[in-house]
């Protein structure tokens, strides 16, 4: 039985369909990479998976609980088994890094402060930030913030780890370090990992399977080998970095012609 099951998921914003009847199963212990261009719906799908938004229709079932229909209490309980690291890291600026990591342990467990301190140190050590716990997020580099966010996501030893664009905005070396960290975490903790990215090298390094999103639908889902061998034009365009229509001079000319015609019609 898959740990996450998405069925006929439809999401609309102001009548504009962003996700269109998506179906996807993610197995326990699997690393699933959600790949796609800007505006393809990756982050929207992620927000659905972590229960931050409710869809127009369809279901997202996590560990047998449909989070689109369950109560707030059930959702809260389920969230203890999901760790999320956001694209912007989203560490609380008013707290030190170790307090950020300790927050969930203090709020959701009855552990003694000394045990919490030890656990926080262990989580920070796993992501290579053991000596930086006293610092505040604004004193960290971009890569360190992202690792801090991963440490916080790991606080309650979640079964599912969700990472939104972990390597966005990072230099290739730090991005590669984060990839290795994700592989290490999966190996060490047997977690199910969902990664949203549009970085191809990162996706092919860490993924067991890749789901490729294009304009709100999955254009292709498969293992990384299947995706690499895919002849799907959308997949090929993405893998081979073929520019879209907007980069063609004819498309730009057509756009301007349409714009001027609209302006004339108004006058």
């Amino acid at each position, binding site marked *: 039985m898959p740990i996450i099951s998405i069925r006929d998921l439809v999401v609309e914003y102001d009548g504009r369909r962003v996700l269109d009847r998506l179906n996807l199963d993610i197995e326990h212990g699997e690393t699933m990479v959600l790949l796609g261009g800007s505006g393809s719906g990756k982050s929207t799908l992620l927000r659905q998976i972590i229960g931050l938004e409710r869809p127009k229709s369809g279901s997202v079932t996590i560990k047998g609980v449909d989070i689109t229909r369950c109560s707030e209490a059930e959702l*809260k309980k389920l*969230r*203890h088994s999901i760790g999320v690291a956001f694209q912007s890291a989203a560490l609380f600026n008013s707290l030190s890094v170790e307090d950020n990591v300790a927050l*969930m342990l203090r*709020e959701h467990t009855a552990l003694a402060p000394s045990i919490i301190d030890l656990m926080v140190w262990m989580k920070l050590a796993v992501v290579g930030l053991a000596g930086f716990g006293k610092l505040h997020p604004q004193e960290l580099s971009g890569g360190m913030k992202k690792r801090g966010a991963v440490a916080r996501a790991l606080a309650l030893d979640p079964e599912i780890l969700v990472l939104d664009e972990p390597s966005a905005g990072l230099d290739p070396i730090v991005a590669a370090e984060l990839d290795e960290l994700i592989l290490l975490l999966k190996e060490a903790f047997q977690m199910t990992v969902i990664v949203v990215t549009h970085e191809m090298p990162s996706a092919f390094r860490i993924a067991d399977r890749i789901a490729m999103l294009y304009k709100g639908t999955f254009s292709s889902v498969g293992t990384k080998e299947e995706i690499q061998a895919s002849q799907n034009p959308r997949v090929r365009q993405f893998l081979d970095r073929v520019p879209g229509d907007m980069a063609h001079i004819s498309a730009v000319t057509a756009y301007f012609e349409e714009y001027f015609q609209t302006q004339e019609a108004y006058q």
Partner: protein
Amino acid sequence: MATVLESVGKRTLNDLDYVGSLNIQLWATLRAMRTALPFVGNRYRWQATVRQMLQIGVDALPMVSLMAICTGFILAMQGASELRRFGALNYVIDLVAVGFTRELGPLLTAIAVSGRSGSSFAAEIGTMKVTEELDSLRVMALEPVEFVLAPKYLASLIAVPCLSVACNVCGIFAGALFMFFSTHLSPALYFHDVMDSIQLHDVITGLIKTVAFATIIAHVGCLEGFRVRGGPDSVGRSTTSAVVKSTFIVILADAIFTTIFYFTVKS
């Protein structure tokens, strides 16, 4: 004509939506408030409440005191210039004492707190929204209303009345200085007259106002923060809006309370 009606209708609906949102937020906060209380609540929330009390109350004390001393002096001088013509200079004491206890103390405090803390609430929560910190709280199974708003509201409820009492004392003290230098009235006699002129209901109505003003400032500031959409520029707009709206609503509420007390409380 239709356009005017449309815009009036739209504006009315927006205002109703705003009032409705304030109400929903207020009830949600009251439900979550238990967690911010000492002994029975969560100790981290109470610590946050104490920090907020220091920021709202103690940090604002010098500014509010100075404002109160200046206003007390102005009120005494303006009152004296008119009352002297009727040989009723001793009524300056009543004017300053009753004026501050019923009206100026709560209002000056509210305006100062609105400018300092209302804007700070909006900026803090708005920034948390832009940087995904609020989403981060939700995925950590922590409610932003409980985690962010409840300590701020409880702190306002405690700090604003205390600040208002300090404001009253400073304003009345300024009146004593004026009377001493202009009529050589001894401070002991001045404060004896002050105690005679102030009645218990003056103090109680003043405190009722401060509790209402604290509610308005905390909730308008926080709501403006929660309503931030987009980027950092939106945080700036929400901060301005928090000060403008809370000051306006405070003055409106003051007028309503004063009218009610004028007709219901007999001196």
